[in-house]
Structure formats: structure tokens, C-alpha cells
């Protein structure tokens, strides 16, 4: 099995490993390369066109949006943003704050609980470990809908429906098994000699974990945090069923309720707020791209 460290670097190494060899003819090769670039650029444009169009349309009045497929902006029309911001019962920022609370709670929960479980699976020997590990892998593949109804009832009986608790508490119990797996893979790549050294120095498991392992795991923790951020920010189904008070809506549900209000055809404002809601994802993507890509490569490899 190839060493994990070789896989953490995704920038092209000096002598490319998996690069296919192009035919020798230089003129044919150049033309082919140009053609390829053209195709890729066209493809890339087509891919991002809808999003860019939405961005540009958010700066146009609604009637103009429906007439104008182009990207050229004559006048910048900011009313969609100001109007959309205040179109619902609360300023849109209120819903972003709700989402932020849920997301931060989820991130902290995942970081704490998943790292603990991952350390146990990767470094500790205990009875029935294989069984629990297999179960954990299976839960990654379990459809959420089979547990949603009784979970809902459970939270209902506890009086926690219409609070953020059902959205955050499970994260503190490592229910996102995917991240446990991600961290296990990562820890396996950390040489055991370091553990041994710490053990010789008299550290117990908790000290090894908190003082040595966690700092070494920062890339995996970062990946977990960013993925959790993006997934939780976009999560629609769970807030849909648990948050019934419009004041506590998170961004996706609030955005959807735009269609419900009497300004249901106010596409301009809806696009504006859509852009606003996508900005955090985009930022997370910009700053965290390296971690995301590494993280996927780590768990997606052989």
C-alpha cells in the first residue's frame, strides 16, 4: 500500500508520475494542446456561467433579469440587496447568524468527538474493536431517513424540536462517521515511533493524544472543519423538519421561504440573498481548497 505521505502533495511533482505521454510530433502536439485548452475553457465557462449570471442578475431589477441572458452590466442596481435583506420578518443577517451558530457548534462537536474516536480506532487495542470499526463504516452508508422519524420523536419528547439542539448535539457524538474514518486514515500515516517515544517519556494515552497527536493532525482537523462548515451551512432537510419557528430558520430554509412570502416572484431579491448565502461557502472553498482536495484524495485513494 502506497505511503500516505506521497499522496498529500497534489501540486505537480517535478517529474510527473501519472502523466500520459503525448505523441512526439510537435506541430500536431501543439494544435492538440490548443484544442484541448479551448475545450476546457469552453467547458469551464459553461460550468460557471449560471452562477456568474445569478451574481450579475442580482444587480438587475427583476423585470430586466428575465429579459437578459447576458453578463454585461449596464447599471448596478443595489435595491435587490437592500430589499432582499429586509424582505423576510427579520433582516437576512439574522438567519445567517442562526446558521453560524449551528455551523460553529457542529464544527466544534465534530472536531472533538471524531478525533477521540479516531484515536481509539487507530492507536488503541481493545476488545471488539474490529466489530465497532465495521459498524462505524456501515453507518457512513446508512440512509438518514430511516432514523429521522424516531429521532424526531425523541427530540420531540425532550422538547427540543424548534431548537438548534437536534442539529448540533449529534455532532458531539461523532455521528458524522465519515470524519472519524478520515482521521483514522490520517493517524495511520503518523509513525508509531513518535507514540513509543512519548510512552517511554511516561505519557498516558490522554497526554499522547492531546499533546502530540492533535497538533500532528491539524491538516485532518482542518479538512474536517471545512467540510463540516460547507455541509452544515447547506443542510436543508434537518432544519426543515426541526425548525418550525420562522425566527430560528437557518439560511437554506429562510431562502426557500422567500418563495412563500407574498413577494414570491421577487427573483431579484431572491438572487441577491442567494448570492449572500453562497459567499461563506465560496470563501471556505477559496481558503480551504487545499485541505479539501487533500482530504478527498486521502479517503478516496486505494
Amino acid at each position, binding site marked *: 500500500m502506497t505511503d500516505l505521505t506521497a499522496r498529500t502533495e497534489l501540486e505537480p511533482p517535478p517529474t510527473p508520475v501519472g502523466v500520459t505521454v503525448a505523441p512526439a510530433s510537435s506541430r500536431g502536439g501543439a494544435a492538440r494542446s490548443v484544442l484541448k485548452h479551448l475545450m476546457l475553457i469552453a467547458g469551464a465557462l459553461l460550468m460557471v456561467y449560471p452562477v456568474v449570471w445569478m451574481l450579475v442578475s442580482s444587480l438587475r431589477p427583476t423585470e430586466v433579469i428575465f429579459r437578459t441572458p447576458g453578463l454585461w452590466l449596464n447599471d448596478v442596481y443595489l435595491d435587490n440587496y437592500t430589499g432582499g435583506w429586509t424582505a423576510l420578518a427579520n433582516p437576512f443577517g439574522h438567519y445567517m447568524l442562526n446558521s453560524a451558530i449551528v455551523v460553529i457548534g457542529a464544527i466544534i462537536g465534530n472536531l472533538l468527538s471524531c478525533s477521540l474516536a479516531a484515536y481509539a480506532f487507530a492507536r488503541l487495542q481493545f476488545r471488539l474493536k474490529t466489530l465497532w470499526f465495521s459498524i462505524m463504516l456501515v453507518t457512513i452508508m446508512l440512509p438518514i431517513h430511516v432514523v429521522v422519524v424516531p429521532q424526531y420523536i425523541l427530540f420531540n419528547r425532550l422538547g427540543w424540536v424548534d431548537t438548534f439542539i437536534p442539529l448540533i448535539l449529534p455532532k458531539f457524538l461523532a455521528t458524522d462517521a465519515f470524519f472519524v474514518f478520515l482521521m483514522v486514515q490520517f493517524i495511520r500515516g503518523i509513525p508509531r515511533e513518535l507514540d513509543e517515544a512519548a510512552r517511554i517519556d511516561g505519557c498516558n494515552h490522554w497526554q499522547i493524544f492531546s499533546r502530540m497527536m492533535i497538533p500532528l493532525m491539524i491538516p485532518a482537523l482542518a479538512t474536517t472543519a471545512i467540510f463540516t462548515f460547507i455541509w452544515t451551512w447547506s443542510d436543508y432537510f434537518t432544519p426543515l423538519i426541526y425548525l418550525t419557528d420562522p425566527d430560528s430558520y437557518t439560511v437554506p430554509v429562510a431562502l426557500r421561504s422567500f418563495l412563500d*412570502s*407574498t413577494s414570491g416572484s421577487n427573483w431579484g431579491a431572491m438572487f441577491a440573498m442567494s448570492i449572500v448565502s453562497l459567499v461563506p461557502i465560496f470563501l471556505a472553498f477559496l481558503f480551504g481548497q487545499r485541505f479539501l482536495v487533500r482530504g478527498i484524495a486521502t479517503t478516496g485513494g486505494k
Partner: protein
Amino acid sequence: MALNRRQFLTGGLAVAATSMGLTACGGGSGGGGSSDGTADLQFAWWGNEVRNKNTAAAIDAYTKANPKVKVSPQPGEFATYWDKLATQTAGNKAPDIIQMDMAYIAEYGKRKALLDLEKYGADVSKFVEGSVDSGRIDGKLVGVNAGINTPALMANPKVFEKAGVKMPDDKTWTWDQLREVSAEITAKAGGGIVGIGQLFNDAMLSAFLRQHGKELFTESGLGFEAADVVPWFDMLVAFGKAKAIPAASVITEEIAKSLDQQALATGKSAMYMYWSNQVEALNKASGAEMVVLRFPSVSGKATDRKAWYKASMLWSASSRTKYPEEAVKMINWWVNSPECANINLAERGVPPNTEMLAAVKPKLSPAQTAVAKFIEDIKPELANTPIAPPPGGGKIGDIMARQQSDVLFGRTSPADAATKFVDEAKSNLK
């Protein structure tokens, strides 16, 4: 073994389930409320621009007069109101005051989700004869009539003018003549305008069935068979062929739109089925003065129409509300106080409280006065009031819309659609 395996398994599962406390949730008695009259009421309704403004103003007036009561408004759209209410009710977070519709009152009432209003002092003493009982389920008053309306076809005279078509005589027209007029308008008006934008909904099906001696629902369930609706689907096809109604995909999109975006308000349709009280919102959204027309009859005589009065909507309260007295108090104020009547006028329908009706009559806009007169005028055309749909019956309109969509897209024949429709409607009834 004392227990056989099946008993053991069932028992085990039940233990697991009860470990989550799945015993009865003890509904019906309402919460304790507070003794000094403070309350925090969640108030939900569906509406349009006019109604939302009125409701907000009325809520303001009430809270000013009752400073200890806080009211949190939850406006919404009809199309999504019921899913939301269902989720809220299931999560034990139903609003304290709920605007209710006849389509669902049995569903919620029979499941004991609605408060027994008379128990907490609901006052319907001044209501006109016959307008109270529609809110009774299993003998308990769970909904107070919020306004009387009747099904009507709204017509935009400006569009008729544009098409150069005369306003039809609604006292003598038949379904066929409605189709002809609509087709004529579509042909002559141009610009994507159609004769009638919405006709084939559950209210009109009810009228059609009644004119053929059937009903949508009876005490024992569905009031008709597949054979009874084949002519209805045939009529749909005929209207479609004649281009009296819009194209199939347009109809699909229309359903999801709000009133001010639907074809009548935007001038894309000459006629549309609406409830009589919606005239005010329509006038405001369209900038035209709508004419209220009777729906057609099979015989051509308006007195054979089998029209009816409907409680356009009702005021209910959640059976789990923490403030039953305060909720009922507010409902009482809503339907019995001149102050509220003067704000809402007839937007939710003609006030059932006879004193309130008398008080607002002089203040009604010309459109609403016309509607009030319309409601008076059609008295000789009334037949017995249809009963409230039983639980599972509220969505019959959706089921029918799906089958109609299939018919219009040519994916199924009227005969098949009729059978599927009846089968699904029946299986939905609980």
C-alpha cells in the same frame, strides 16, 4: 418457551419504542395559561397583500388594547401553509391561533389537534343562521366562521374589451357556453391571453358533481365513482383542445404562484375561478374592477346551479396552546368587535356576525358591496351545504390536479385518469 418468538420480538420492539416514551401525548386539554392575562400568541394565517396588511393592522389594534398580550404573526401562502402547519403540529409547536380551512378542519379536528373553543368561552351568539355548524367536528366547536364566501368566476372586463367579446349572461350559461366564450377570447385577444386561466379545481368539481346529483364527500367517504368524473375529464380535454384554458405546463406553474402573480391579476386571462372574497385582493393586484360571475349550470338555469355558502376560513386554536383563554378571547374580539370588522371589512368574506355585517356595510368598497349583494342574490340558487372533507380528503384537489396534468399532457386517457383519481382519493381517506 413462555413467549413465542414473535411475541418476544414484538415486545422487544415495543420496549425499545416506549423507552422513547411513545405513549399518548395527552392532547385536548390545553395548557394552563396564566392567570393575569399575559400571553404570547403565535398567530398564523395565509393571505395576500391586502389581507396581510389588514391582519397586521388588526393585530396591532388588539395588542394596543390588550398590552399584556404579545402576538407573533406568521403569514404564509396557501400552497405551503398546510405542510408547514402539519410539521408544526407534529412537533408540538402549532401556532396558538390558526386560520383554518374547511378542507382540513376535519383532519385536525378529529385528531384532537384543535381546541374546543366553546369550552373557553367562544361567543357565536350573533352569527347568522347556518354559519356556525361548519366549524363543528364531533360535536365540538373547533372553528369559528371567519367570513362567508361562495365560489365564483372572476372576470376582467378590460380583457373582454381587448378581445372584443361581450360579457356573458351568467344566469343562463352552460359549461359548453363557458368553453365557447373562453375559446373565443383566446382566439381574438392574442398576446398569450387565454379565456379562463383556472377552472378545473376541486370546488368546480364539487359544483359539477352536485349538478349531476352527486357530492364530493358524504358521511361515509367519497361521494362519487369513476364513472361520474369521466365527463369532467372529457370536458377538460375539450377545453384544452379549444384553447379555452392555458397549456398544460402553464397550468402547472400557475398553481405554485401567489395570487398577484396568477394570470388574472397579470392580465393574461379573462376569467379565473376564485372565491368571492378574493375580489378585493384581485382588484388591487390587477388594477381592474373584477366582475363576479356565477359558475355555469348543466341546464342553463342559474337556479339549477346547486351553489353553496362556504365558511371561507375559520379561526381555530391549537389544542396544545398554553393560553387557551387568551386565544379564544382574541378570536372573540376578531369576529365580534366593530373595530376589527372595520379593519378587515369583507376581505375574508362576508362577516357572519349579523351586527358586524350591518356595521361594515356602509364602509364596503364598491367591489365588496357588489360581492355582498351577489351573496344575497344567489340565495334562490343554493342547495345543501357540502360537508367538510373527512381526514385524508383535504388533498383531493392535488390528486385531481396531477391526473389532469397527465390528461392534458396526453399521457393518460380521461377514463384511466378518472379511475386512478378515484382510487387514489379513496385510499387517502383514513
